């Protein structure tokens, strides 16, 4: 295991923020926490590429911008190809001796709609071509900016406006797409999962993702109080429950090796810490209907799904 990167928060907090206040993301939204922590972990000139979505819309309402770093938005579906283009241009300029920086970090922020669905082919292409950039998926598990439509990242049973829970269906009828596994399948140098609640773990992963040569992918859980239906103050608690229940395990895949990290490693070592998935579901209004007697079997189904993925992870990481 490589030496642990340490961040001195009391020093970092004195610096001017790279994501500025005055943005119009909802109170309590996790997306700006993710973006600010990621930028805090950078130590080189940084270029940010943003896919369409809440983070992009609400941080750049004309004529304002909240980005204290070079930033570009192109379209919904092509954040990864935009990043590829930037990397290629920098390479070309360097060859001609026209670029002053030795190393530049390119970070993509994209939502689940922009990643699991509409941006998947541009992402896969960029991973396959091997561009040197870090892609951070902030996963709020639905198309939030257009009013909570289900995406490939929405979990089974979740209410959304296009998977409404009622007499016909009990919320979304399919499971979440295994997006981080899809990134791993490309055999890129670095893939990880993270949450803003486990901030030191997240910042370390960002630094690792930026330091590797080639593409890196971080899947960050981004609770949305509007779409998930919980109080604005609970964002970080919801992240903790997601990890404590193994709904969202923290792991990294580095140079072909799997590793559990932070709280998930603690749970693997002491399985008594693992909480039932119900504890994650019950604090969110989007799962409220699952607690009706006729839908209870779905909670069991979600638990089975979570357990299967967790067991699989324990095997991959060599713990079982």
């Amino acid at each position, binding site marked *: 295991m490589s030496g642990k990167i340490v961040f001195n928060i009391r020093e970092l907090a004195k610096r001017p923020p790279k994501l500025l*206040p005055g943005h119009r993301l909802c*109170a309590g939204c996790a997306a700006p926490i993710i973006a600010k922590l990621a930028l805090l972990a950078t130590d080189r000139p940084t270029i940010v590429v943003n896919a369409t979505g809440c983070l992009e819309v609400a941080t750049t309402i004309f004529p*304002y911008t909240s980005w204290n770093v070079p930033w570009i938005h192109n379209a919904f579906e092509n954040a990864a190809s935009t990043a590829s283009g930037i990397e290629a241009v920098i390479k070309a300029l360097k060859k001609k001796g026209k670029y002053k920086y030795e190393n530049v970090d390119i970070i993509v922020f994209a939502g689940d709609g922009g990643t699991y669905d509409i941006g998947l082919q541009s992402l896969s292409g960029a991973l396959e071509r091997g561009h040197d950039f870090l892609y951070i998926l902030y996963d709020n598990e639905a198309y939030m900016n257009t009013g909570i439509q289900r995406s490939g990242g929405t979990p089974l049973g979740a209410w959304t406006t296009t998977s409404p829970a009622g007499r016909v269906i009990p919320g979304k009828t399919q499971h979440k797409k295994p997006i981080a596994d899809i990134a791993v399948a490309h055999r890129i140098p670095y893939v990880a999962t993270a949450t803003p609640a486990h901030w030191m773990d997240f910042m370390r992963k960002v630094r690792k993702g930026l330091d590797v040569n080639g593409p890196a992918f971080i899947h960050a859980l981004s609770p949305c109080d509007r779409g998930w239906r919980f109080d*604005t*103050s609970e964002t970080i608690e919801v992240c903790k429950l997601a990890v404590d229940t193994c709904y969202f395990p923290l792991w990294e895949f580095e140079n072909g090796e799997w590793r559990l990290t932070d709280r998930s490693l603690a749970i693997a070592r002491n399985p008594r810490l693992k909480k039932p998935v119900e504890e994650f579901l019950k604090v969110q209004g989007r799962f409220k209907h699952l607690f009706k007697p006729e839908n209870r079997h779905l909670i069991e189904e979600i638990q089975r799904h979570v357990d299967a993925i967790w067991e699989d992870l324990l095997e991959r990481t060599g713990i079982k």
Partner: protein
Amino acid sequence: MGETLRSWKELPLSALPFKLSTEFKTGDWRTFRPVVDQEKCTRCLLCWVYCPDMSIVWDGQRISVNYDYCKGCGICARECPVKAIEMVKE
């Protein structure tokens, strides 16, 4: 005849936001305001880490809240390990 149209090379490359969002105050979204008890605060800076609106300010000695932008989400109060932040109705 008339005005000459600009060629594509002369058009602006894209929409360019040119003002910092710090000119846009979001503090009036707030229903509850976080109030810090400096006696209880241990300067762990967890509130600074988690604030989605960069509204906790650390000057190297103590924390304070920038009410120009704080939206009153309550995350800082919820996550403070020693309960040094209280949410008070505006």
